[in-house]
């Protein structure tokens, strides 16, 4: 990962110096282990802070609409700034989705694609240390990770064991859309059982499913970090906060939490790239992937397609086939 980081810093510095981009969005270190911060470089000197490692969990595409849209109340002629962004596989697929949804103009962006071996799920790693707080995380040779807690407890683990769910089943290690790429492409690994967790959950009896669904959503504090971290959530007014009609109450009643999470997952149909940014953003460690992946699984099995894979592939819910399945329907 570190040679990619060096090349990235050098290239971004050049792009900024040449004026090819006005600003470049990437990742920088954060003050919390296994986390990165969103970093906006405006000068060659800013580019020095850019990092590329296994903690770059945010989906940077989520920040693009705000930057590339005419600010409300702006008078006179407005041209979007030239924005550069570093894009791993899932981020580039989200960018493709946003371009198709006319949220961001392709020509205002300069995309540096990077090959990505997968990002760490901070919650999953911290849980290995029990209640003590993760104080230090060190990446070791051979894709190993050493974790140390406040009370001195130490654990060493394979990176693969603590990756985000989406990364463990990733089918797009390399950017699908880029102006240039850094790092040699990582070949797809086809033998992974995709949607394994969804299958396992679906096979559990209905009472058990209902019980764990309630447990997961009951932890929600309606902070909307999942929504704000997701590039698909660019609505100006979200159904969860609408007042006319008021779909759900402004409460943490279980029923309102359920409607929010079912509604949010449903809006991901045919658009979620399983980047795990929502899972990483949730302060309560909710397994949001439980719902997202179910919708992704159904979209894949019922309508095929590969989310965000190409600019000219129409979105599954924006089209239909006469032969679409009707097995779910009720006959008298």
């Amino acid at each position: 990962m570190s040679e990619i980081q060096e090349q990235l810093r050098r290239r971004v510095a050049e792009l900024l110096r040449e004026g090819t981009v006005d600003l470049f969005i990437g990742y920088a270190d954060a003050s919390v282990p296994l986390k990165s911060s969103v970093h906006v470089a405006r000068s060659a000197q800013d580019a020095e802070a850019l990092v590329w490692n296994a903690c770059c969990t945010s989906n940077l595409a989520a920040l693009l609409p705000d930057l590339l849209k005419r600010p409300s109340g702006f008078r006179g002629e407005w041209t979007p700034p030239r924005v550069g962004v570093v894009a791993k596989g899932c981020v580039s697929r989200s960018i493709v989705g946003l371009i198709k949804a006319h949220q961001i103009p392709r020509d205002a962006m300069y995309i540096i694609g990077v090959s990505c071996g997968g990002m760490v799920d901070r919650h999953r790693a911290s849980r290995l240390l029990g209640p003590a707080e993760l104080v230090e995380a060190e990446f070791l040779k051979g894709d190993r990770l050493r974790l140390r807690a406040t009370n001195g407890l130490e654990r060493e683990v394979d990176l693969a064991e603590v990756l985000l769910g989406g990364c463990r089943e990733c089918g797009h290690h390399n950017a699908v859309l880029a102006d240039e790429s850094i790092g040699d492409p990582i070949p797809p690994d086809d033998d992974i059982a995709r949607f394994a967790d969804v299958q396992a959950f679906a096979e559990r009896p209905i009472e058990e499913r209902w019980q764990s669904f309630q447990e997961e959503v009951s932890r929600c504090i309606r902070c909307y970090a999942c929504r704000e971290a997701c590039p698909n959530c660019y609505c100006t007014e979200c159904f969860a906060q609408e007042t006319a009609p008021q779909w759900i109450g402004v409460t943490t009643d279980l029923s309102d939490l359920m409607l929010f999470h079912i509604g949010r997952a449903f809006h991901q149909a045919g658009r979620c790239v399983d980047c795990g940014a929502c899972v990483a953003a949730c302060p309560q460690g909710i397994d949001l992937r439980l719902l997202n992946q179910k919708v992704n699984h159904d979209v894949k099995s019922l309508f095929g397609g590969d989310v965000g894979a190409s600019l000219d592939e129409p979105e599954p819910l924006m089209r239909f086939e006469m032969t679409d399945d009707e097995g779910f329907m009720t006959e008298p």
Partner: protein
Amino acid sequence: MTDLTKGRGERGAGWEPRIVAFLCNWCSYAGADLAGVSRIQYPPNVRVIRVPCSGRINPLFIVKALQSGMDGVLVSGCHPGDCHYISGNLYARRKFALMKSLLEYVGIEPERVHFAWVSAAEGIRFAELLLGVIETVREIGPATRMIKEIETVR
């Protein structure tokens, strides 16, 4: 101190399932109307909400109905090819398939939510469909999941 604001009966004697039906104006609503006009009896458990097209049905309507305590939800539109707006039902079919599967996945009993196509000429078929839905819901008893109970004065 939580009190139910609506008279949601328990399974005891006299409990009748309450169903809400979203019917598309051009076919299913007309089919239901035809059933009535031709004096075909079907029980009064259903409350019909007319929508311009099955494509108009926002999946949140379904979960909102379940949240309000409805025991069953029926969504019905024109048969593929009959849609007054050509493709409203065809787009909707994909949404319905995903919603039915997602609701069952999280643990809502599949017998709660039904999707069907009923044309304007199928009065009898509509009545049979409705009877079937009511019996299926009667079997699994009153709704208990995802209901929003709002605390109020008794």
